[in-house]
């Protein structure tokens, strides 16, 4: 009987970055002669092939980390949305989002409803919202099986920079906020 996923608290962005660094360092060690099982794992292979395989593993790891970062960002906006609606905050964005919820009920969309509301009420952040929208296209590409050609404008590091900017600049309410 499978145990299923254990509910662990969602990692914060800096913890996700540390996790990613640990995974990359582990991969580099595993694909190096310092790994005691290096000869067993790669017997008969050229060192150059092994380096290529490492590169491919790191790229895959970056892709996965980028997806987790983007889903974390998406969750941050949805948690903020819920708090603004439930706690009946009085600022213009919260009032706007409550109107959206009243109109669309359970069909509130991240891009057209939530991010559009942010853009309207925080025009100074519209540049960051534009970047985030572009990054979310990558999130959809990743989450839907990567069957089309990805945008060349994004990688793990650019998404990490966008995520850091959003978390630092946006007045997002977090879980437990009054």
């Amino acid at each position: 009987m499978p145990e299923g996923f254990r509910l662990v608290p969602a990692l914060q962005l800096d913890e996700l970055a540390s996790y990613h660094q640990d995974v990359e360092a582990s991969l580099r060690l595993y694909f190096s002669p310092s790994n005691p099982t290096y000869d067993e794992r790669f017997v008969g292979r050229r060192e150059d092939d092994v380096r290529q395989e490492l590169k491919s593993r790191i790229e895959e790891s970056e892709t996965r980390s980028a997806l987790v970062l983007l889903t974390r960002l998406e969750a941050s906006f949805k948690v903020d949305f819920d708090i603004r609606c439930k706690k009946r905050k009085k600022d213009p964005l919260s009032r706007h989002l409550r109107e959206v919820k009243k109109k669309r009920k359970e069909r509130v969309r991240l891009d057209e409803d939530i991010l559009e509301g942010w853009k309207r009420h925080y025009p100074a952040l519209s540049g960051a919202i534009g970047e985030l929208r572009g990054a979310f296209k990558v999130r959809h590409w990743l989450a839907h099986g990567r069957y089309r050609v990805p945008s060349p404008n994004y990688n793990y590091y650019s998404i990490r920079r966008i995520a850091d900017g959003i978390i630092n600049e946006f007045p997002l309410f977090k879980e437990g906020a009054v």
Partner: protein
Amino acid sequence: MVTGVRMETKDFERFVASQQGDAGIDWAEVRDEWLRALNSLHGKILGFLREYIKAGTISYGFTEIELNEPDIGIYLAKRMDIKIGRQSVSLVPLGTMLIGCKGRVDAQGPAGHAQILLVNEKVSRAADLIKVTVSVGGKVPHSTRERKPASWAWKILTTTVERRFVDLDKDSFFALLMEIANA
């Protein structure tokens, strides 16, 4: 931080020293040793096939192919093609600058391929290549990786989960041929 800088310099010195290890190696000799081992493999296989070649049911030929390896450079090595009626199997040399072995030849047939590796004659599975270093009283002995085995032997690497090295003999080679020739 002064101590930190010293540590980094030591690390750098170790790195520079580790890159000097290959300076005394005669790469032409490494190449020739591998080509001799390749010839001995061909000789062994011709021995297995002798009666069929004599009877005319199996034929063979050699073609020189170009290999390019780090440190050694470009050189020629022989590919052996074995013809069994309408089926054809090639033994393609991959090179000697490889991980965990001294040479590799890929047996390629219409139904698959297999690796024949020149490895320490004492190993019987890939897990035997795992290196364990035990430090006694803080002193780390020289890595076993540096130690050369007493003798090398051609073995077939199985594709099973355990990845065993099967001694190359008449029976194992015939089994390999039938597998990759779709017999």
